[in-house]
């Protein structure tokens, strides 16, 4: 059952429009509608808000501003993870970034709220803000550490000496832009007051964090906050924490004692949620003529909002990727008055590997060596910085297998040599590596007298397939057909989890469910073998087999439902859990990652420099696969994110206000159908016994890791033009295009 390409169990609901997302719930009275008003300056203070015109606008029930918003809890840095901290909104007249909420208008209808929101009159005392990342490099500072206390800087050996002795060197600067998560479902929330309690239907990735953040902000007992998140229309990091929409809806619902709904508009998403920091990255590589690296240095500088520090672990993948005796990584932050950075799919690896795997391609070119071969030649035997063994590293297999399947041998090493009509055609390769994480997650499994198992956890399914994989894990764990398993997720009443994010959701929740099933089997066996009415009475349970809804021992068998009916008619339940990685010895003893190799073929128009992806393949090593179908979909989705990162996505800051100018889906470019050709993802058979009992690792972010570099390297192979300022767009390639015969 585990590993099979089972169709999504929530598929029929999703394709018929029957899956209910946060904004779509109806609970209690007809809800009121809130519309957010954002600041039009990037830094300064509100000196006055005139709401008289708004308040007399038709249908308006409430206008919330910092003048009448309730007192709120502060962001408490002693809470270890950001997503659980308070998110004060409208808490002061200070403006910290363009688009920050300055008012919420609540009216009877959406149309009335939107119209009235235009009538809010805000006066500001604007201050000169810092918005220009390039111009503020001299203000860069070193952060204390990265997430989980991982050091911001590391050094092994002597990089400068290594580089001096190296026969071939690459020393280049790259820049990566602001990028946004932009899930299709905007952040949205319905809050229903219920006495002193709040029922919060919100689109979030971590229910427990949403509950904690709401409670901390509104200074409520978390037990009074009930979060419901059944379906999430995509997260990609943007819904790891709740934002203003949820806090504002909750404040308004409490004040009015009425249900209130708030969703951000697509444009507002560009000024309030989930921006990946822009970065500048210097990569220095030194190698011997045979390709062996003697030095690797990856120095990263990125923006952070001045008031809320956020660090992407952009250089950490470099620490484990290739062998080299001399190495260095560093992380610096430039404080700006631009929207605070947040996690966007594969935080760290996505921009880091885009750059490092481009630099490795530059080195291969400088050496005149095949880039697949160069990578294989630098395969480490142990983690080169930590000195610990890898748990289950198969990067070389991914590279070799992918090269075979892709027809890599047809690549012409010299750039700009292959033509197909008007297209210059190039091949590119890049490696993928992504850290495997684990966090505390609980799940309960209850078997009813009807023989149906119900799995409960506050875990979410953000399109990742959680409902489906947990169905499979529980079905296998109890020997039930999958239609005898029901998975219930996304309610704060259920056992808590750390949700979906960091590619840890599948590993955490499947392991927890597996443990719960193991415990439940023990309980069932204990009940049956001690029950004189059971055919299994007195038998040795060591050889028990659970299958087809029954358990059998030496030819004697009984249906699970029977055991439950007789012994505990209200159902038999067991819990399972996982712990934080810092409490798991394997995380200290091993370097645990997932791996992959991307192969891309692009065509670049010989006259216009239009870049088209022609085909792409990824081969991945992810430990054991829980569901071959949903896993492949996630990997392909990630790969397309990589394509988009290389060629399209870029948030552009207005240097006058610090806001993003291209704040919609027509100007912030994401791929559409016509941009994406045949793409395939292949997973190697595997089982990482150091990761967890199921041998499972996460893969939701692996697909994007390195994918953009494969595309960038293919563009270089097609044209001979190396663009180091991402994304690679026509105007950057065109001037360098080779002259073509007419």
């Amino acid at each position: 059952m585990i590993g099979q390409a089972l169709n999504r169990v929530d598929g029929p609901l999703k394709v018929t429009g029957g899956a209910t997302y946060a904004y779509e719930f109806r609970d209690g009275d007809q809800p009121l509608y809130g519309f957010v008003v954002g600041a039009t300056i990037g830094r300064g203070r509100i000196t006055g808000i005139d709401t008289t015109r708004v308040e007399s606008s038709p249908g308006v029930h409430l206008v919330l501003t910092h003048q009448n918003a309730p007192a709120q809890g502060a962001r408490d840095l002693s809470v270890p993870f950001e997503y659980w901290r308070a998110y004060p909104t409208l808490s002061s007249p200070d403006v910290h970034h363009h688009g920050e909420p300055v008012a919420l208008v609540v009216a009877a209808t959406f149309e009335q709220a939107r119209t009235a929101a235009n009538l809010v009159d805000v006066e500001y005392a604007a201050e000169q803000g810092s918005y220009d990342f390039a111009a503020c490099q001299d203000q860069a500072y070193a952060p204390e550490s990265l997430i989980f206390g991982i050091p911001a800087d590391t050094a092994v050996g002597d990089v400068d000496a290594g580089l001096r002795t190296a026969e071939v060197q690459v020393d280049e600067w790259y820049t990566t832009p602001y990028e946004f998560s932009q899930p299709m479902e905007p952040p949205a929330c319905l809050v229903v007051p219920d006495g002193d309690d709040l029922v919060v239907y919100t689109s979030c990735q971590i229910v427990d964090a949403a509950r904690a953040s709401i409670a901390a902000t509104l200074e409520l007992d978390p037990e009074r906050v009930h979060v419901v998140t059944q379906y999430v229309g995509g997260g990609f990091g943007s819904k790891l924490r709740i934002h203003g929409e949820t806090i504002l809806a909750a404040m308004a619902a409490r004040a009015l004692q009425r249900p209130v709904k708030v969703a951000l508009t697509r444009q507002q998403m560009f000024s309030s949620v989930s921006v990946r920091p822009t970065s500048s990255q210097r990569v220095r590589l030194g190698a011997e003529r045979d390709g062996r690296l003697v030095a690797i240095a990856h120095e990263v500088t990125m923006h952070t909002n001045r008031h809320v520090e956020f660090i992407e672990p952009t250089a950490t993948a470099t620490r484990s990727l290739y062998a080299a005796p001399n190495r260095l990584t560093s992380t610096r932050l430039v404080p700006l008055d631009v929207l605070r950075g947040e996690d966007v799919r594969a935080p760290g690896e996505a921009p880091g590997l885009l750059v490092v795997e481009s630099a490795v391609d530059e080195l291969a070119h400088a050496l005149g060596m095949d880039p697949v071969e160069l990578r294989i030649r630098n395969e480490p035997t142990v983690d080169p910085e930590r000195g610990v063994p890898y748990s289950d590293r198969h990067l070389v297999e991914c590279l070799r297998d992918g090269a075979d399947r892709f027809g890599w041998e047809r690549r012409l090493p010299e750039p700009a040599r292959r033509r197909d009509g008007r297209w210059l055609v190039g091949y590119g390769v890049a490696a993928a590596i992504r850290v495997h994480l684990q966090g505390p997650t609980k799940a309960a499994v209850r078997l009813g007298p009807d023989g149906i198992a119900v799995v409960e956890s506050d875990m979410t399914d953000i399109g990742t397939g959680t409902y489906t994989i947990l169905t499979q894990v529980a079905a296998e764990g109890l020997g039930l057909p999958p239609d005898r398993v029901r998975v219930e997720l996304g309610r704060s009443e259920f056992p808590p989890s750390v949700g979906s994010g960091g590619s840890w959701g599948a590993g955490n929740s499947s392991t927890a469910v597996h443990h719960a099933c193991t415990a439940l089997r023990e309980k069932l066996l204990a009940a049956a073998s001690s029950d004189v009415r059971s055919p299994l009475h007195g038998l040795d349970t060591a050889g028990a087999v659970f299958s087809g809804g029954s358990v059998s021992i030496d030819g004697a068998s009984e249906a699970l439902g029977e055991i439950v009916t007789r012994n505990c008619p209200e159902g038999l339940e067991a819990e399972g859990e996982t712990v934080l990685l810092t409490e798991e010895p394997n995380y200290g003893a091993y370097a645990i990652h997932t791996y992959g190799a991307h192969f891309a073929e692009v065509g670049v128009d010989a006259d216009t420099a239009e870049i088209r992806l022609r085909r792409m393949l990824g081969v991945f090593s992810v430990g054991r696969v829980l569901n071959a179908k949903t896993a492949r979909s996630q990997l392909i989705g990630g790969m397309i994110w990589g394509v988009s990162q290389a060629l399209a996505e870029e948030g552009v800051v207005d240097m006058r206000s610090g806001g993003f100018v291209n704040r919609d889906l027509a100007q912030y470019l994401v791929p559409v159908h016509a941009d994406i050709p045949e793409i395939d993802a292949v997973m190697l058979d595997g089982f990482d016994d150091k990761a967890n009992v199921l041998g499972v690792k996460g893969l939701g972010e692996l697909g994007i890791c390195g994918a953009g570099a494969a595309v960038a390297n293919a563009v270089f192979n097609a044209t001979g033009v190396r663009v180091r300022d991402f994304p690679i767009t026509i105007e950057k390639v065109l001037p360098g295009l080779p002259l073509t015969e007419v």
Partner: protein
Amino acid sequence: MLRWIAARRRTVLTTSKADETDIEPGLRDIPELSMITLRINGTKRDLEVDTRTTLLDALREHLGLTGTKKGCDHGQCGACTVLVNGRRINSCLTLAVMHEDDEIVTIEDLGEPGHLHPLQAAFVECDGFQCGYCTSGQICSAVGMLAEAAAGWPSHATADVSSSQIALTDEEIRERMSGNVCRCAAYPNIVAAIRVVAEGGPT
């Protein structure tokens, strides 16, 4: 246009309580409600809507038909695609009051769990979605698109625009479906699902 609509519809209520002079020019006539009847999924539904209500919000907020999704509210994502008189449109770009005599079909009418429309079944089988938020729009759009192709409408990807026969290649499908953004990027699987149905595959 709003003025024109207001004149055409029976105005039942003016809720403006503000002093006329306080209201922005152009907004004066707006907070009016209209009684309209929409024919949705074969059923007549009476409702009273603000004349500014989009067809999308009428479906989602007034009629409880939340299968149609709001991704951008201004015609850039396709999540809100429905069929109006057999043609696919972005329901966020049109006002409810403009559709009194139209036949509107939403995702809820195409099939239900256990009795899926062939496209819905193919989307499940091919895993043509992840989060599912763009999916209603993709499927309604595909229904409309297949009809357009069957009727011989050419696209930017059509080699011979004078031909009345459209060969529905993957390139054609991709071009014609490009108004429907999928941020989960299920594109290869969506195209596979549509191809199965276009080729008369499993129904």
